[in-house]
């Protein structure tokens, strides 16, 4: 497996400029002769589709939702980082770069992160030009706030709906290109496989979710912008439809999968409250700017929060991390909540919750000011829990939220399969082992607006423009595989529902490969997952047929892939015998519970190669070298 990251030469500040100059260009008259398929219409896919069409390429964009506007980027709440330094508080491209590399616990690729920081400012300019209604000050200037893991105010936001407004901006740009006939948009079409012909990605096979029709689509390049895999845990903050299918099927066709064990567990989610629960709801971590996190000092406390005096409360983040306090990065805040609950101090249903208290903020700035900042989040909390957070503290607990692992890509965002590019959450490169708040929107839009549109041209320049079709025998072969798999699912006729299996897999992954992992637990999971997969393929029941609108069949295909992917995720967590970022191996911690990295042996990305259904995958590594940031113990004390 070729894992040359293709990092350009030169000092880190100049790499992207030099690379843009050195990359080959496509003759403007030839651009319309290059066809590109983009799978996914979120911030990464939508912005890439719009920008590539503006440049003149012939674009097809696919999404499983009924409209491009519904991609899960829409649910991001808090904000988007950019090194604008509008607040004059000492921010810079270099500081954003440093914070991101450190926040990722020194497991990301320096050159990619630096480029991300460089283009971050362009993203804000672009979005404002599109009419994204960011929060503003009375003087008309853009407002900023600080966010977890940073000590400067570099986060731009649009109330608690930043993801929605950014996505509607890029959806508008996409709509403009669709209206102009430059993008063909395919909604309710799910990609079920990638076609690799003569060594290059040449297209995809999709299923029309309304009619069930299987179709092949050919192109000169394929871009996956299909998001993350947090739904492997069944309960997560992801939308119900989020899945690993596109990236996993690409992996099975030859794309290396990097660091699947890196998952982010977000600290501020509404706790689980019943067995019927279908998903978890996140509340923006911007709440931690004013809310104070605490648990009762005494295990087994039975008094309500109002009756517990301050002296008997443990504001554990402020106590353990005095310089960052309640703004400690996500992995650290989540793990601390788990520790508190493991010690019997948790509150609410099953003792799995901690308080997020606005009492002091309301006393300091008044209820109206708190409502102005977080009103929609408070309303959402009240709707779900039937409790008024202006009067009683919120209860929160960590939940799977984002996945830093993904398909391996080089500096050009190309996977190990030539022509197959991967952008946004679906790739692995920028966040290392932990993502900082307000960085996912930044990365999705950076990839789609400002990186891929340049680097994909470099790939096209090596290809012949012009005719391309689905007659190649590899298309027929892949189509036949897709049909066979769907027929197999339909024909099982077992006794248990798809959700039954998904729930069981999710529980297993959460217990053994969740916020804390150990070798014994992971080994158990590696035994249990293949058994569960076996049970699924012999006992799942999917009503209806494959040539109709069949939502159970859609889910079944996705869960079948999670049942394969989960095994590789656990294998990756087992072989990464260190703690780093969101990957916390209980064997590797300091006496006070902080993660201990092993840079001598694990300062690399682990990249898995698929070896067929019955063989173990091969683990390859891309060494990560740090020339501009000194490897250090990540401290937020």
């Amino acid at each position, binding site marked *: 497996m070729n894992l040359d990251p293709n990092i350009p030469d030169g000092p880190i500040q100049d790499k992207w400029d030099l690379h843009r100059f050195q990359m080959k260009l496509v003759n403007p008259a030839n651009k319309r002769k290059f066809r590109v398929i983009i799978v996914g219409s979120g911030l990464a896919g939508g912005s890439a589709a*719009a*920008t590539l069409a*503006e440049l003149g390429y012939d674009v097809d964009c696919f999404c499983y939702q*009924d*409209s*491009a*506007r*519904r991609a*899960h980027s*829409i*649910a991001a709440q808090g904000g988007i980082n950019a090194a*604008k330094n509008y607040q004059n508080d000492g921010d810079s491209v270099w500081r954003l770069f440093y914070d991101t590399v450190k926040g990722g616990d020194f497991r990301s690729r320096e050159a990619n992160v630096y480029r991300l920081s460089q283009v971050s400012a*362009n993203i804000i*300019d*672009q979005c*404002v*030009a*599109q*009419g994204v*209604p*960011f*929060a*503003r*000050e009375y*003087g*008309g200037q*853009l407002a900023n706030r600080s966010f977890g893991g940073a000590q400067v105010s570099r986060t731009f936001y649009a109330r608690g*709906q930043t993801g*929605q*407004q950014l996505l509607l901006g890029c959806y*508008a*740009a996409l*709509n*403009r290109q*669709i*209206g102009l006939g430059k993008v063909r*948009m395919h*909604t309710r079409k799910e990609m079920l496989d990638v076609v690799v012909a003569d060594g290059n990605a040449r297209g995809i096979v999709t299923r029309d979710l*309304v009619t069930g029709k299987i179709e092949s689509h050919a192109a000169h390049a394929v871009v996956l912008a299909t998001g993350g895999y947090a739904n492997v845990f069944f309960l997560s903050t992801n*939308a*119900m439809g989020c899945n690993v299918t596109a990236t996993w099927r690409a992996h099975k066709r030859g794309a290396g999968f990097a660091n699947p064990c890196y998952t982010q567990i977000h600290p501020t989610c509404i706790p689980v*409250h*019943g067995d*019927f629960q*279908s*998903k978890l*709801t996140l509340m923006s971590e911007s709440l931690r700017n004013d809310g104070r996190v605490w648990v009762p000092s005494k295990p087994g406390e039975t008094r309500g929060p109002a009756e517990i005096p301050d002296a008997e409360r443990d504001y554990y983040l402020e106590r353990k991390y005095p310089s960052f306090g309640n703004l400690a990065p996500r992995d650290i805040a989540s793990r601390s909540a788990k520790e508190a609950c493991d010690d019997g101090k948790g509150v609410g249903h099953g003792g799995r919750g901690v308080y997020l208290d606005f009492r002091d903020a309301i006393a300091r700035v008044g209820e109206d000011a708190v409502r102005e900042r977080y009103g929609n989040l408070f*309303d959402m909390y009240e*709707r*779900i829990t*039937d409790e008024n957070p202006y009067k009683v503290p919120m209860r929160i607990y960590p939940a799977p939220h984002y996945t830093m692992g993904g398909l391996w890509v080089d500096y050009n965002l190309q996977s190990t399969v030539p022509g197959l590019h991967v952008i946004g959450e679906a790739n692995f490169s920028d966040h290392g082992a932990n993502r900082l708040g307000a960085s996912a929107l930044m990365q999705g839009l950076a990839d789609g607006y*400002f990186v891929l549109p340049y680097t994909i041209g470099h790939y096209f320049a090596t290809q012949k423009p012009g005719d391309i079709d689905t007659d190649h025998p590899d298309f027929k072969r892949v189509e036949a595989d897709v049909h066979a798999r769907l027929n197999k699912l339909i024909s099982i006729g077992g006794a248990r*529902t798809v*959700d039954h299996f998904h729930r069981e897999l999710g529980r297993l992954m959460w217990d053994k490969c969740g916020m804390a992992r150990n070798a014994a637990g992971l080994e158990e999971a590696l035994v249990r997952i293949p058994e569960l997969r076996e049970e699924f393929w012999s006992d799942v*029941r999917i*009503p*209806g047929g494959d040539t*109709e*609108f069949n*939502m159970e069949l859609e889910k079944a295909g996705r869960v079948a892939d999670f049942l394969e992917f989960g095994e590789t995720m656990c294998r990756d967590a087992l072989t990464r015998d260190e703690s780093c970022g969101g990957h916390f191996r209980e064997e590797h911690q300091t006496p006070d519970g902080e993660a201990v990295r092993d840079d001598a042996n694990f300062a690399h990305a682990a990249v898995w190669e698929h070896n067929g259904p019955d063989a173990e995958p091969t683990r390859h590594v891309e060494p990560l070298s740090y020339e501009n940031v000194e490897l250090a113990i990540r401290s937020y004390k």
Partner: protein
Amino acid sequence: MKLNLRIWRQKNAEDGGRMDNYELEDISADASFLEMLDVLNESLIERSEEPVAFDHDCREGICGTCSLVINGVPHGPRRATTTCQLHMREFKDGDTITIEPFRAAAFPVLRDLCVDRGAFDRILQQGGFVSVNTGGAQDANALPIAKVEADTAFDAAACIGCGACVAACPNAAAMLFVAAKVGHLAHLPQGEPEREQRVVSMVHAMDEEGFGSCRNYYECEAACPKEISVDFIAEMNRGYRQSVSKGVSA
């Protein structure tokens, strides 16, 4: 709690459809409305019946995928709340709940409770944007915008494109949806250069899609989960008439 459900079942666009009855027991008041339907579907699958198809995705009230007319009201009884954020505590033990799809000629039913809202996308493709290519933007703070205008633009931009306004309107008009996008961009200087053409093109596209006419019933505003104001409809009408009187045509 125990519930009697009356649910619209329709195999596909060609099928005539009918209401079917289902009984459900042991539903927690803390479950969301869609989780209640999940429980129904699991029990249907276990009985070898076909589950009820309904659209949903984020389940946190922002993607706009979920729909449903619940007891005659789009998104159900709780104001400013999408179906996915509606909880069973809004209902009583023993209630009969009627569940239908969003109904409008421009939203054909695909199956059971799922409808095709592609008409909304097609309207936005005719002008719901600022024509700016990637890369050509000036510094974001070079264009100060008064907070009150930015906030008004945001109020309109909060639309999630769910279609409840259409389902609530006796005429199945899409005025609130279109006015929200027109209003969002009309309140920002970025939208100014194309303002006149935008409103005319989008209203024309709306009519072409077969949506009905606005008669100021204001049912749309009452049903809107994001509480978008009908004031934006008045603004759009004024903008439309001004533009047409200047000779702007679609």
